């Protein structure tokens, strides 16, 4: 029993550190890719090819003074970034990131690469996403600043609008998989059709995947859906009044949310840790490769597409994505009934 508990805590610690590291790597990747898109060099002075830039950024933020506007609500102002960061970490707890593994024989018993195997994992991710709105709303309200409040209002309406399409695209996958557990959904995607096409749900749910990715970008407030912090209009949106580490927590939450959305997309649509060549116990390598590809797509999109206008955002969410998601769900349900599972 004891080694199992040690393994569980190990996984917990591993996931925590991996998320923190992924945020740092993402900051670096984002700046380098942005530089490449804009034909610049990007950070190159700190460490080899600027690889230590995120470390320098964190150190800089640590030494800054934590400012709080005099008219701010003291407790809520302090609480908001904590809610954001906590929700970001918590959502990843139910996401499996590999099959059972012994880490190259390091452990005696194989452990499952997942912090908590919950029956209703998909719904837990969805629930935590809906709670994470509070971090942004409260930040915007408590700062007692007009720009912050406007950013918070925009983000809430945006997240509520896109949450529907997000949830409906998830529901279609659940119909196909006939399960709510992320682990079993991934396992259902093993093997090949006709011997070479992997049985990933993206091939059964192409429309669902597109809807999920668009809604996912909107849920994480990334460009071209970055209204809550549109620099040209709102200074910095909901985190205008934040400085030092409380600002860093919002920053961290944004990047971890991106990783979580990509990880869930990998599990639901891209077969999770399943892949050719490598044995299943090393499937986490495939998982990392798939997540990295999705994250690159995120960054690529941010530096390629201009921001939408607010009415365009609402029109896209309610008049395009939502009807498509409903259609996708109905067609999927009919297909499941007709063909069986």
């Amino acid at each position, binding site marked *: 029993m004891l080694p199992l508990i040690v393994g569980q805590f190990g996984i917990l610690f591993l996931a925590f550190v991996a998320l923190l590291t992924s945020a740092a790597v993402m900051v670096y990747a984002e700046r380098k890719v942005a530089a490449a898109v804009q034909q610049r060099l990007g950070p190159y002075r700190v460490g080899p090819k600027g690889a230590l830039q995120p470390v320098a950024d964190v150190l800089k933020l640590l030494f800054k003074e934590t400012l709080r506007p005099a008219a701010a*609500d003291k*407790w*809520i102002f302090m609480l908001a970034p904590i809610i954001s960061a906590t929700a970001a970490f918590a959502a990843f707890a139910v996401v499996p990131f590999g099959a059972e593994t012994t880490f190259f024989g390091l452990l005696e018993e194989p452990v499952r690469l997942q912090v908590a195997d*919950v*029956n*209703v994992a998909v*719904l*837990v991710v*969805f*629930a*935590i996403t*809906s*709670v994470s*709105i*509070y971090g942004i*709303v*409260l930040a915007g*309200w408590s700062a007692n600043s007009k720009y912050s*409040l406007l950013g*918070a*209002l925009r983000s*809430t309406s945006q997240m*509520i609008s896109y949450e529907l399409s997000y949830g409906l695209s998830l529901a279609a996958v659940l119909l196909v998989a006939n399960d*709510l557990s992320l682990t079993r959904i991934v396992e259902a995607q093993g093997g090949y059709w006709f011997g070479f096409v992997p049985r990933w749900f993206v091939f059964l749910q192409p429309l669902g995947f597109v809807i999920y990715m668009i809604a996912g970008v909107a849920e994480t407030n990334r460009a071209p859906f970055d209204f809550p912090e549109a620099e040209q209009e709102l200074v910095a949106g909901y985190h205008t009044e934040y400085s030092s580490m409380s600002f860093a927590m919002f920053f961290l939450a944004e990047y971890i949310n991106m990783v979580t959305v990509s990880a869930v997309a990998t599990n639901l649509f891209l077969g999770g840790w399943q892949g050719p060549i490598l044995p299943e116990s090393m499937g986490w390598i495939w998982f990392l490769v798939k997540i990295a590809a999705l994250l690159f797509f995120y960054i690529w999109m941010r530096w390629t597409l201009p921001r939408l206008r607010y009415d365009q955002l609402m029109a896209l969410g309610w008049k395009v994505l939502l009807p498509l998601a409903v259609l996708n769900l109905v067609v999927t349900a009919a297909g499941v009934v007709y063909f069986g599972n």
Partner: protein
Amino acid sequence: MGTELLLFYAFAAVAVGASVLVVARPHPMHSVLMLIVAFAALAALYIQLHAPFAAVIQIIIYAGAIMVLFLFVVMLLNARQEEAPAPGTLLVRGPLRSGALLAAVLVAELAWALDAAQGSDDGLLAGGAGADPASLGSVRELGRVLFTDYMFAFEVTSILIIVAMVGAVVLAKREL
């Protein structure tokens, strides 16, 4: 004391404490936040009852969707800190009396329910047919029951929500 019991008392204490603070805090924003905490503590209690689905739905619907709307209203109306009315006036005594009456009714109801549940072999306390944890937690079973036995109630509820939505649109936009 077992871990489970300890957790129960911890979450129950959080739920009760947060609910008291909902009423006691003078600022509406703090009340809303405390209500969310109370809902979260209730969700934790559902998990202890082996009903993870109900717990997650509690978070999504109440903590996630409905409370965001509450928060919106409080934010947009720009509600300020409430001034407490002077003690002894009718403004204090009236709500106090009706509140005490309602509390007494609630306690009586609870006592009656507990008494009735102990006598029958149905319900959670008795561990009868309705208390099977596996069927409570299973989403599939819940969906089946919802769309067969409770079909009518389910559809009536959805009609009620649609009526409310149409009503809200009509009230908000008098000229369409």
